[in-house]
């Protein structure tokens, strides 16, 4: 844990941080959008429930990003999750809303 | 009032749970606890903690009950830990006091 970190190790840690922050927020945002649009509740209720849950989703994703055995594995898991959510969103709405190309 | 009843029961329950651990058992008794005693203390401890939750739910309902229960339990735990670290022997009369407070507040 002390001074003798190699460059490769530092890069791996930095990679995990970027992956956890970007991936965590991105996946949480995608999940929020998906649930907001698809939960079988009145619109306001669906958005509220999705938004309330989103922070737990993000914490879970961050834990996974740091717990995975290697950086590549972590990236694969998070990438898969994001892709699945995006596809589900595409199926649910017929388009990728805002900025994901519609 | 709920805080006193739930807190008193919680204090007694947590004290029993804590005395079931070897280190703290020896603060009051000379030897490590025997197996039956450990089980007895644990059973009594969890029962009392469950009773304190039941009391809080009974007095304050499903919304305020859990809040009062957790609040009083955390307060009781803090008191217990400080007592154990600084005056472990005081646990004897504090447990007696907790019984009095619990019954007093429940009947008041």
């Amino acid at each position, binding site marked *: 844990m002390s001074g003798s970190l190699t460059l490769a190790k530092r890069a791996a840690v930095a990679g995990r941080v970027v992956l956890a922050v970007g991936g965590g927020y991105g996946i949480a*945002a995608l999940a929020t959008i998906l649930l907001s649009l698809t939960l079988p509740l009145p619109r306001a209720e669906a958005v*509220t429930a999705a*938004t309330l849950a989103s922070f737990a989703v993000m914490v879970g994703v961050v834990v996974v990003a*740091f717990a995975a055995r290697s950086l590549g594995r972590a990236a694969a898991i998070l990438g898969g999750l994001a892709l699945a959510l995006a596809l589900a969103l595409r199926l649910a709405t017929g388009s990728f809303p805002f900025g994901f190309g519609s | 009032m709920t805080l006193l009843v739930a807190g008193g029961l919680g204090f007694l329950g947590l004290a029993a749970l804590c005395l079931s*651990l070897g280190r703290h058992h020896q603060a009051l008794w000379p030897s490590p606890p025997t197996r039956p005693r450990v089980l007895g203390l644990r059973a009594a401890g969890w029962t009392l903690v469950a009773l304190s939750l039941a009391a809080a739910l009974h007095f304050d309902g499903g919304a305020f009950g859990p*809040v009062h229960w957790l609040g009083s339990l955390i307060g009781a735990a803090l008191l217990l830990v400080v007592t154990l670290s600084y005056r472990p022997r005081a646990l004897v009369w504090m447990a007696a006091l907790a019984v009095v407070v619990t019954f007093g507040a429940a009947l008041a």
Partner: protein
Amino acid sequence: MKQGFRQSMAWLHTWSGLVVGWVLFAVFVTGTATYYRAEISRWMQPELHRQAAIGPEALAHAADLAVAHLEAHAGEARSWFIGLPTPERPLVELFWRTRPGTAPDHVLLDPRTGAPAAMRATKGGDLLYRFHFELHLPPLWGRWIVGICAMVMLVALVSGIVTHRRIFSDFFTLRRDKAAQRGWLDAHNVSGVLALPFHLMITYTGVVTLAIMYMPWGVTAAYKGDQFAYFAETGQITKARPAAGQPGTLAPVGPMVARALATIPEPLERLVVSNPRDANSTVVAVFEEPHGLSHEHPQVAFAGTSGTIVEVLSGGLRPAAKTFTTMVGLHEAHFAGPALRVLFFLCGLMGCAMVGSGLVLWTVARLPKAGTATGFGWRLVHTLNIGTIAGLPGGIAAYLIANRLLPADLAGRSEREVQAFFGVWILVAAAGAAANAWLAPRQAWRGALAAVAGLFAAAVLADLVLARALWDDPAWFLGFDAVLLAVAAGFALISRKVDRFRAPGRARREAAAAVGTPRMERA
């Protein structure tokens, strides 16, 4: 990081806790103080005299006086906020913002005459309240920084729980006879584990209070980003009434106050007037929360020019919205009576202790071996630790002292108090940093904490000497001073404790000397 799950979580806990620890400590301290925001404000304005109940006529009259003042001084503002007098705080409090981006204007009026209230200008408890989620930065910056730190705290909590093998036995164990590192570890474990339900609750609900700002994408998708429409549809605010663009005259608000009071059986808290000079102006009467966990202010909206009721909001939230407002309510704990509030306050203190002891633990666990120099990283963390853990409380004490020492009619008085707060904070931090050059870490800690204890004692002294003649309720003020003295005593006690902890090096040497009688080190 090619280790097991537990090790990677331990690593995550250590480093995520460290990087946000200083901000979290400040957020916890100011948040804990905010449980007594109203009391701090009252202590800082000893000229204020409480009143018996305030009747509906007096309330309506106060509202009319408030609007008259705003018509004269804030005609250009897009909205007016009128805090109405209560028996605890018999003042009319006005806020308005003339241009976006500028600081809001703020005035306190006497509710009977409408003249500016004759009392010292201060931000009172509001400084600590706003610092708690804005860090005295531009609001957007502060809120995002606090939100990110809160998310990292959630991660640190979850990874901390996972790291713990023996939560059950650590629950009760505070060893005070062992080496420094053990002591700090126990303090960190006990304060973290005892109040764990509180820590999880307060962190998650804290993020939730600003959820729509941090995670707006659900609203973006379902409402095309119209947050007002979303909040109105959930039943948390009244529907927005856009400005007509034509001038209009605001009807007298006194009768609106009377009708609002007849509609909702709660104390009236404030009025919000939107577009006051527009034909489509709106007056919203906002009431105190009814008894309950949920943060839900009943509201009555009036058309400003006619004074007719356009909307009444009172309860009836659906489950998800109710969950949301209950989370916000739990975070604020407005529902807590005196005893429960003390428990919330103690839990907050345990949060401060958890974050503070965690930060200190990082340095104690990495204390350089005897004879070797400390690295830059270690010195940086140590300096920031002293600067935050001693500096912030020192700043709060200085804020209270400045409140008593500065003349009541000084120009820019409330800003001077804030300068005292930050000035002393920086001073303590700088002294701590400078002390690194010639003092051992332990001595620097002892000195800084003792200084904080002295500052809190000085605040009590300043109150007793300078403000005693103003107290309307001596027992109340003496009670507040007693709490300040208890805080001072707490810091003095920790200062002594820090001094008595033996550095691991010395403990080890003594253990080696006493090798004939080895003591079992039971983990």
